[in-house]
């Protein structure tokens, strides 16, 4: 099992998570977890996962004057969607529930037989209390087969940030059952055409809470979230030709960092977040350069005729994958920087582009073998090629989740391009954006 507390996780994140845990929103343990619950219910490294059937009846409203009755169904639907998208759970249809959930006075009493007879593996029972804008949700998770409570916690938040609160509940359940950090609080940046122009947007990982980040009224492209989560680099034509910009999310400031004549293509963050790999015009060719965050060139990374673009760093930063057409068609290559060696890793089909290197050392890319464009994954040595999308329109521009277990990509399987997520093995493909216009070029934030 992968140890998530690896040195790869930045200090910033540690500080951030510490603040999150201690500050702002307190989480109270109601009960010390049963020692037996330390057991791993879900082996997330298994090649395919048997989905656990989870029942999430409506939440009870404990508010004194019955405020916000709509939360009784809205809160569980956020959690249900999270658990469904995770690929580990199959949320059960409420109409199958036998137990009269409304009639039960407390969360503690559970008629386990009523749940086991309909095939339930896990049950979430929860209630909420609203005082003004404060929202407290009490959640209990039961293992039906062993008739045991696995989790009992209260979560504090705000009514207007109810989705965030429920994502925390989801992460808690994932951590408890898999031993790995959940990604339900992560976000996605992408290009949207809702205004008639291409602008950069961000949204929660599930496509909700979208916010427009740029209003340049021209073409903005290729947003890429920094490894620390504090910045997004992107391309824009707002100064006449494609140049690279950096947006600081906290201050909202935008800086132009590469404005070379010709093309400044998409930036790719080095794992330390201190520099970028950028494909740009150099003489007659397009080569990849390492630039710092002021745009100064630190190093030339490729030196080959033709097109060399779309770099993506390995988790340790010692290598990067990129696209080159030196063979006559676009193919994926790996550059080992210490050994100054470049190796081609894709040999099937005549169009392989958009590589994205995961934290778990798989490379996702977009390939075209039989007309349509599909998402594939491959090991950095070119082995274990796997096709993840098949027969459903064009599927492009994959980006990995911070835990390397999910891929977000754009697909035109339902007409225009929209964003979809799927498990690393291609299972559980779900559309996540339902906004006006088209959505493309997703990039997943860190945890």
């Amino acid at each position, binding site marked *: 099992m992968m140890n998530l507390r690896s040195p790869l996780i930045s200090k910033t994140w540690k500080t951030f998570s510490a603040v999150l845990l201690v500050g702002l929103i307190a989480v109270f343990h109601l009960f010390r977890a049963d020692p037996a619950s330390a057991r791993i219910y879900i082996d997330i490294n298994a090649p395919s996962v048997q989905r656990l059937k989870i029942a999430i009846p409506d939440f009870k409203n404990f508010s004194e004057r019955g405020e916000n009755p709509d939360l009784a169904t809205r809160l569980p639907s956020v959690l249900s969607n999270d658990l469904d998208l995770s690929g580990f759970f199959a949320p059960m249809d409420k109409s199958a529930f036998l137990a009269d959930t409304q009639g039960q006075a407390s969360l503690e009493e559970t008629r386990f037989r009523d749940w086991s007879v309909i095939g339930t593996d896990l049950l979430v029972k929860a209630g909420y209390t609203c005082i003004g804008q404060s929202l407290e949700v009490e959640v209990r998770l039961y293992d039906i087969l062993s008739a045991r409570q696995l989790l009992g916690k209260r979560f504090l938040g705000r009514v207007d940030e109810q989705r965030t609160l429920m994502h925390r509940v989801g992460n808690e359940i994932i951590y408890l059952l898999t031993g790995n950090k959940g990604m339900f609080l992560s976000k996605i940046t992408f290009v949207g055409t809702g205004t008639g122009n291409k602008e950069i947007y961000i949204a929660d990982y599930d496509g909700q809470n979208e916010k427009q980040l740029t209003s340049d009224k021209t073409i903005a492209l*290729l947003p890429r979230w920094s490894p620390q989560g504090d910045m997004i680099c992107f391309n824009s034509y707002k100064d006449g030709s*494609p140049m690279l910009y950096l947006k600081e999310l906290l201050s909202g400031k935008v*800086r132009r960092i590469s404005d070379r*004549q010709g093309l400044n293509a998409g930036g790719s963050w080095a794992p330390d977040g201190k520099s970028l790999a950028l494909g740009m*015009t150099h003489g007659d060719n397009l080569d990849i350069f390492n630039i710092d965050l002021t745009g*100064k060139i630190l190093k030339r990374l490729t030196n080959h005729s*033709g*097109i060399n673009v779309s770099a993506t760093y390995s988790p340790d930063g010692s290598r990067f994958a990129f696209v080159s057409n030196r063979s006559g*068609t676009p193919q994926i290559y790996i550059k080992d920087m210490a050994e100054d060696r470049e190796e081609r890793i894709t040999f099937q089909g005549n169009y392989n582009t958009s590589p994205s290197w995961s934290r778990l050392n798989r490379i996702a890319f977009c390939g075209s073998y039989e007309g349509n464009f599909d998402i594939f994954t491959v090991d950095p040595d070119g082995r274990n090629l796997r096709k993840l999308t098949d027969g459903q329109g064009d599927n492009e*521009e994959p980006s990995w989740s911070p835990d390397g277990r999910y891929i977000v990509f754009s697909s035109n399987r339902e007409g225009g391009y929209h964003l979809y997520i799927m498990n690393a093995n291609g299972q559980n493909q779900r559309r996540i954006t339902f906004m006006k216009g088209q959505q493309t070029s997703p990039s997943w934030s860190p945890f």
Partner: protein
Amino acid sequence: MDYSDYEPLNVTEEVEKSMIRKWMMVLVVCVFAASLLGFSSCAKKQVKADEAAKPAEVRQAAPAAPPSDDADRQRRLAELEKQQKLQAEIRAFESENIFFDFDKSELKPASRAVLEKKAGWLRANPQYKLRIEGHCDERGTVEYNLALGERRAKAAMKYLSAVGISADRMSTVSYGEERPADPAKNEAAWAKNRRDEFKLAR
């Protein structure tokens, strides 16, 4: 390797740049206005020279005669015609694209002929600068298409440069798959979209 032309920008430089750009605009407008004035005064001088060249007795025959309205109109019409011809040439120049095969940036023989013609016009009109825009069809991924569009623009620029058009007069910009000429999703539309466009500026 020389990266001396590639300096990072800071915010103040950005502001300065945009100020400089504003003043440049003002300057360009002034120069343009001045050139118009200059042009008309040249025309007047020409008229005077013509008069001076005429035989003395003709001048004496009509010593105080103002320049004939008719001749003036003729001259204005000729000028207008010249301008219209130039505008038509520019429109023709800008409307003739060159086209590429899928995933290719090599020039086709037909494209070379088009570029020869453009080179001829550029030689005859040295005051014009050229911006070459490379485009792709919608198939494939955004960033690779940006790169491919840049290669297509560069291919035309290299050719023009080889036949004697100074590289200082030319620039390239790639629009990748962002600005299709025909939004339809079929081979006929894609063939129209894999193109270089040519934009003139003084």
